[in-house]
């Protein structure tokens, strides 16, 4: 029997760029109409607060993940997230990153590859035609969201630089610039942020390099210029503002496993059976919902990724 190692996301879930772009226009137009109706109803002059032209589309209730759960609002996604390079306050990230420049953005791909190169994110977007991917994000703090990313599989970029046969892992590094990222002045963290994946995890089709969100650009607070999204792992694996991707032979160190190796493993797969030593991971709160949900094995992507870990003791390789 040839069971595919990972079924693709149902093609109905992937929105062609043309479609979501025109949908954005439609939503924008709908928003303007609804807005003007509301204003008319209240009898308020609209001149004071014209709708921001660049504001991304509001939540489209039609957008759901493959399990049928709606995407979170753009407001929640971009105003409630961890990004310790700016601050440990989840609501403080957006205001503090307001002036952070995400374009132009370069990412250097090096290490055990045949064609080491520096890429401009703009060129990558042109070359790889990013697509929309609706993924669940499960934070190790037991909250979760459904997020419509725009990006392309990391595999495409890796194939282009051609890893040598010695390359077994991929190491990622975030920009280090304490002047623009004030959280990096804190001595409580071993900056810069670094993360890693096994090469087969990195080559998996679900593993995304995101360059956009909600049909628009990737906002600074969400990890722009370019970030990783690994939906079956806890959120901290999905490193933001990447400037360096390095192919290496040995398992790279990661920021959180350097801080507390007994608590944050290299794999960090979402796993309700394996608790963080101090907190349970059995349930979570989906942002916007009242009741807790059961956490799903591999965050609901078990069918696609469980094969990567066949024969591994996940309670030891957490």
């Amino acid at each position: 029997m040839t069971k595919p190692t990972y079924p693709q996301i149902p093609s109905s879930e992937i929105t062609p760029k043309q479609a979501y772009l025109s949908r954005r226009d439609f939503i924008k137009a709908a928003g303007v109409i609804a807005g003007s109706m509301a204003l008319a109803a209240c009898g308020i002059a609209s001149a004071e607060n014209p709708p921001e032209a660049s504001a991304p589309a509001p939540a489209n209730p039609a957008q759901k993940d493959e399990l049928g759960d709606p995407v979170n609002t753009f407001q929640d996604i971009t105003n409630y997230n961890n990004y310790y390079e700016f601050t440990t306050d989840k609501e403080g990230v957006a205001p503090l990153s307001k002036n952070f420049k995400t374009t132009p953005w370069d990412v250097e791909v090096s290490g055990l590859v045949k064609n080491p190169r520096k890429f401009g994110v703009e060129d990558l977007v042109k070359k790889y035609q990013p697509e929309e991917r609706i993924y669940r994000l499960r934070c190790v703090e037991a909250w979760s969201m459904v997020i419509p990313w725009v990006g392309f599989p990391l595999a495409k970029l890796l194939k282009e630089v051609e890893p040598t046969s010695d390359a077994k892992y991929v190491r990622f590094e975030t920009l280090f610039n304490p002047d623009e990222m004030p959280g990096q002045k804190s001595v409580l963290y071993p900056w810069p942020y670094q993360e890693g994946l096994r090469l087969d995890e990195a080559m998996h089709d679900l593993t995304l390099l995101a360059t956009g969100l909600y049909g628009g650009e990737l906002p600074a607070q969400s990890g722009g210029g370019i970030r990783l999204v690994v939906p079956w792992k806890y959120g901290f694996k999905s490193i933001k503002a990447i400037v360096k991707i390095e192919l290496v032979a040995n398992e790279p160190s990661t920021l959180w496993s350097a801080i507390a190796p007994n608590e944050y493993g290299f794999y960090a797969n979402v796993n309700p059976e394996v608790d963080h030593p101090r907190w349970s991971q059995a349930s979570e709160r989906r942002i916007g919902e009242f009741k807790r949900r059961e956490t799903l094995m591999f965050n609901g992507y078990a069918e696609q990724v469980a094969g990567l870990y066949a024969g591994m003791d996940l309670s030891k390789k957490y």
Partner: protein
Amino acid sequence: MKKSRFTLLQIIVHIGGWIPLALILYDFFTRNLTANPIQAIEQRTGLQALTFLLLSLACTPVASIFGWKELIQRRKALGNYSFLYAALHVTTFFAIDYSLDLAAVWRDVWNKSYIIIGALAFLLLLPLAFTSFNYWMKRLGKNWKRLHKLVYIISPLVVVHFILVVKGSLAQLQGNLAQPLIYGGIALLLLILRIPKVKAALLVRRKNLEPGFQEMVLFIKKSFKTDR
């Protein structure tokens, strides 16, 4: 001017005791409790419970260092506000976060040290809140003071609970530890000031204070004593 029954300090304590709750309610109704309001309520009530616990713990040493006796009378109210926020904290956890699903709570947290330590602190706080009425003070006599020394155990437990809920590692002094360590440092200081030798040394010091400093203390005390 009619003489008030209340001192200024008393008024400050009681208004200050309700302000954090009012702010939480205000933020709730104006939808400013973050995208994760339940967790925000848990975090804010928890922090307030610890804040008021430390304030009540600060009364005795501050009163003996500065000779500001009225603080001793306000100690109990501060402790009761600590209990108010602790009770809201625990209630939010069980009734809202886990929707009273005790099976889910048990499965998620029975072996989690931060819950066990937090629950222990709350259980120890219960008899203190319960005996805070004058009736019990009189009835228990000397034992009341003894019983209320439980706070020396409760406050370190709460600090440990705080350290365990944040991300990071105390052993490596890395992670999200700034706030719990500040609170922990204050708690430690307030407990050290109760060690008999330290206390005696401080009282000797107090007598040698510069006159100017004493005058300042007197002035602060006076300004709080108006309308008595």
